[in-house]
């Protein structure tokens, strides 16, 4: 496979929206002892996260984020050539939620629009798709909407996920920009470990039934139903510190990247214990590693863009920041992107 390189394309801006409703890892989860709650916070680094209301869908947060971004960039929705919505929590099984958003955002009918089902690797894959469509020549401007309401897929008494998973929606504008520096990327997939992070039932392989909806003790000892998220913590941990580190290291070597030239390393916000380890193995000093999980938890595909917004919206000088992004997880799917964020528009995170 040849290297993935894009030219004359830039990110114009990124915005994010999160539910106003907070879950506090220390004060809530009364079914778990205080001691265990403290331990979990220490391991994950997550103090609190946001939980969408029943009436709120991922697309609502992405729509808000998109409208704010378009306003601040002074771009009209009719200049958007493509809408890509990356999520595991769409409004409907069908149609693609991106189609509804084409209408809600007032885009032309000539707009391409579709959903992509990816989680933690979603943002970096989304950048690849958007850049490919622009480099292909036909599209000038793409709206990449990335987010999830994972709390709706987690069982709220499952110790494995209740401290971790939060909700958010983000919007990114990617556009053709003559002279913009190269964006380099690398992607990987390993379907042999598909079952390490999964909602086992409720799809078509194991359709929803009274049995799959029953909360019970599962094979791994965890308590949840077949239609809730299951994560094999140890396998995902091993995957992150072995496979993800290997891919990023190889990418850095192949592309002759000097660590000193990278301003920020932005990893999928899985949990602090894991991401600290990855950063350490990649030999990035702590001040270069950006985090937002302490406030928002692990927000699936939204975690990288949300982290960028969280920091860049407050940054004094964001004129020229070279960033190494890496999303990894469910699939198993992972990817790494080397990109220059040049004076991107970043409104503060919206609470809804």
């Amino acid at each position, binding site marked *: 496979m040849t290297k993935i390189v894009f030219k004359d394309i830039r990110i114009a801006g990124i915005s994010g929206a999160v539910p106003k409703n907070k879950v506090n890892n220390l004060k809530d989860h009364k079914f778990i002892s205080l001691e265990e709650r403290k331990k979990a916070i220490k391991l994950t680094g997550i103090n609190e996260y946001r939980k969408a209301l029943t009436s709120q869908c991922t697309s609502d947060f992405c729509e808000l984020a998109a409208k704010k971004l378009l306003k601040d960039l002074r771009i009209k929705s009719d200049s958007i050539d493509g809408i890509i919505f990356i999520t595991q929590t769409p409004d409907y099984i069908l149609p693609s939620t991106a189609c509804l958003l084409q209408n809600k955002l007032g885009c032309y009918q000539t707009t391409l629009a579709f959903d992509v089902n990816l989680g933690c690797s979603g943002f970096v894959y989304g950048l690849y798709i958007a850049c490919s469509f622009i480099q292909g020549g036909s599209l000038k401007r793409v709206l990449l909407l990335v987010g999830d309401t994972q709390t709706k897929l987690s069982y709220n008494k499952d110790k494995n996920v209740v401290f971790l998973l939060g909700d958010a929606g983000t919007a990114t504008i990617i556009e053709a920009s003559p002279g913009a520096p190269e964006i380099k990327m690398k992607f990987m997939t390993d379907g042999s470990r598909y079952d390490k992070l999964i909602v086992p039932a409720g799809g078509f392989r194991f359709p929803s039934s009274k049995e799959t909806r029953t909360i019970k003790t599962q094979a791994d000892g965890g308590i949840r139903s077949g239609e809730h998220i299951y994560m094999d913590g140890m*396998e995902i941990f091993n995957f992150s510190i072995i496979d993800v580190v290997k891919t990023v290291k190889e990418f850095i070597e192949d592309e002759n990247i000097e660590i000193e030239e990278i301003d920020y390393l932005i990893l999928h916000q899985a949990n602090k214990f894991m991401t600290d380890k990855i950063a350490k193995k990649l030999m990035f000093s702590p001040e270069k590693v950006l985090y937002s999980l302490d406030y928002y938890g692990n927000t699936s595909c939204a975690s990288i863009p949300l982290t960028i917004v969280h920091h860049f919206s407050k940054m004094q000088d964001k004129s020229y920041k070279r960033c190494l992004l890496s999303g990894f997880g469910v699939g198993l799917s992972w990817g790494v992107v080397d990109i220059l964020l040049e004076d991107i528009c970043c409104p503060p995170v919206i609470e809804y």
Partner: protein
Amino acid sequence: MKDLFLKRFVEAIEREDETKMEDEFRNYEEWDSLASLSLVSMIDDEYSINFSHNELEKMKTVKDIYDFIVSKSV
């Protein structure tokens, strides 16, 4: 090497009480999913060895973990 391993093991899982090689570590008060991740992390850091969930399942005593490390170090 055995003493150093025990020291690292105890630190990783934050155990304060006496620890013997014959102990079944799953019976420890300190043993939970967080402890198991800390253990995996320590063994990766100190011995550059990784193991899967299945391999850990087979280990019952502290000595089993040590023996596993020795076998992989050869």
